[in-house]
């Protein structure tokens, strides 16, 4: 296999304190070795099947299809153990950490889904687990905090800045700088310094590989469009990756429009941001004229991040993928629509992708593939608060 990518065009790289360089080299080498090791892959495959519940179904959503006027298949990552695609990455990285002899795991979390997935994988493998979480998110996502604690993880509160995801990532990186000998940092999205964007993509690629084979089996053809929400962009890069070489398949990433792009309060770093460095990689970021990183805004905690994965920035520049935005109200409406049409309550993150599909039906023949990245149970309080206030 080819080496783990350090850059995607100009994007990516390792913009981190010198202290971490040796650990990133070690991680790169470990991943290059592990991903070609049949025994590592056999163990991961068995756990994906028996513990995570893979392959997740590809579901032809008939009433949704009727509503938009063309066939729509949902890749049901919401049915994976712990309720989202995050477990694919958490399981793979903790298996890798175990192989590297690291017994202490740290992670960051915003909404709590990645924190729960990492705490779950650590419980499974008997590893120590510390999850950094902003105090504002701890307040908003109390059930997930309880889940992590029940799974044996320590939830470390972060008081800095807006007390949300961006600061939780920074706190985790600082912990890693101080404890790099004993600790592996399980980053939750396809962001961060190399090799993380490539490592996370490799681990999430299973979404797209399964979906591509399932679509061919169901339709005898590839989808016309593959649609996924993009915050850091791990579910999107996972489902896009196996389709990148299929030039006839359009790839559409849906970012958080927040209160609307014009309001300046959004999470659309690919559509309305700048090229800059956040958390170790050069990519699309939300940053002001002086170079200060701005706060993102989204109804969905998982998309509430002022950066995105470097590979997405490159797919955008090369024109291979296009990136659009859906605002908070659109996402809230789509959550309700899918619940009523299909009996599926999607995560607010995934609801952004559903909302874009509802507004942009496929013209002509063929079918769409949409990544339903997670379930929406975690969002019920936020949904109720936002829709009853209106």
């Amino acid at each position, binding site marked *: 296999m080819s080496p783990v990518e350090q850059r995607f065009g100009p994007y990516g790289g*390792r913009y981190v304190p010198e202290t971490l360089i040796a650990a990133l080299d070690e991680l790169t080498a470990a991943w290059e070795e592990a991903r070609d090791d049949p025994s590592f892959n056999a163990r991961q495959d068995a756990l994906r099947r028996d513990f995570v519940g893979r392959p997740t179904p590809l579901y032809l959503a008939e009433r949704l299809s009727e509503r938009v006027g063309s066939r729509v298949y949902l890749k049901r990552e919401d049915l994976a153990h712990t309720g989202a695609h995050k477990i694919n990455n958490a399981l793979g990285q903790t298996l890798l950490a175990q192989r590297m002899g690291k017994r202490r795991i740290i992670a960051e979390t915003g909404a709590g889904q990645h924190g729960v997935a990492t705490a779950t994988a650590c419980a499974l493998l008997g590893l120590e687990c510390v999850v950094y979480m902003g105090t504002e998110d701890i307040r908003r996502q109390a059930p997930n905090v309880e889940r992590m604690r029940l799974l044996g993880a320590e939830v470390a509160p972060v008081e800095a800045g807006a007390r949300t995801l961006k600061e939780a990532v920074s706190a985790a990186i600082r912990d890693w700088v101080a404890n790099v000998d004993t600790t592996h940092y399980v980053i939750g999205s396809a962001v961060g310094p190399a090799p993380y964007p490539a490592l996370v993509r490799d681990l999430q690629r299973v979404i797209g590989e399964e979906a591509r084979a399932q679509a061919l089996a169901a339709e005898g053809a590839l989808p016309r469009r593959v649609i996924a929400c993009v915050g850091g962009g791990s579910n999107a890069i996972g489902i896009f990756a196996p389709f990148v070489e299929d030039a006839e398949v359009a790839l559409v990433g849906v970012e958080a429009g927040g209160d609307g792009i014009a309001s300046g309060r959004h999470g659309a770093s690919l559509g309305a941001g*700048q090229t800059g460095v956040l958390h170790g990689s050069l990519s699309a970021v939300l940053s002001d004229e002086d170079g200060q990183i701005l706060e993102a805004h989204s109804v969905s905690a998982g998309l509430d991040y002022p950066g995105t994965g470097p590979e997405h920035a490159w797919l955008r520049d090369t024109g291979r993928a296009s990136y659009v935005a859906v605002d908070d109200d659109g996402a809230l409406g789509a959550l309700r629509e899918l619940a009523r049409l299909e009996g599926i309550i999607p995560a607010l993150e995934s609801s952004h992708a559903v909302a874009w599909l509802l507004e942009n039906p496929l013209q002509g023949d063929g079918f769409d593939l949409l990544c339903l990245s997670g379930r929406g149970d975690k969002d019920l309080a936020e949904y109720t608060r936002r829709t009853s206030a209106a």
Partner: protein
Amino acid sequence: MIAGEERIRAAFAAAEAEGRAALMPYMMAGFPDREAGLAVAAAYVDAGADLIELGVPFSDPLADGPAIHAADTKALAGGATLRTALEVCEAVADRVPVVLMVYVNMVLAHGGGAEFAKLARAAGAAGAIVPDLPLGEDEGIRDAFHEAGLAMVPLVAPTTPPDRRARIGAVAKGFVYLVSTVGTTGERGELAPELAELVAATKADAGETPVAVGFGIGTPAQVGEVGKVADGVIIGSRLVRAADEGGSPAGAADAVAEFLAEARVALDG
């Protein structure tokens, strides 16, 4: 030798001629506020600083611990920008060499390496430390800095493998910034026991280029201890705390001057 590098090397040489290590206090521009920042810089010069490391406030300072991160946040809340730091630089750069500590996103936002170096040189800066631009990622920006006469000061960490440390020593301009311990900036009770060994190895790799040690140095005794083995001693979080506790521009200046006077005694002794 480039212009900024020459000034930095001269400052180290002057301290060495006095038989001691160079004293390099760190400060955050715009902290606790704009005026107090200017007062702190002036106090550093008066108290015998050989060089000043000048922090440019940034929203996401990954290499810094809680004390300096909080100072970044407070300076930004007070409206500080790169301009605030350049103003401090202009005020003292004719008396001591100033080395900016700036995160890479700010360099990029101000037009990239060449444009940023032009701004820094116009304000009199001699060098720059970019803590999130390690060897391997830095070529374009480093070359642009050096073309403009701004010395790019690289960092070496205890985790840096020997072959990499040698490559960093070979490209260093001004001095090599040796991180004393694994972790972010901040005061610590004890220095790493293997520090003397690490300094010696780094000096061997750096050749003629001086080696200054920073991160975790918070007492006059630690300053004296590090000064025995290194060419320069950097004091950061301890002075940021002193400036914050000063209460007013004059109070901040007095507080940092008091600590620096003790540090100089420890170095001279």
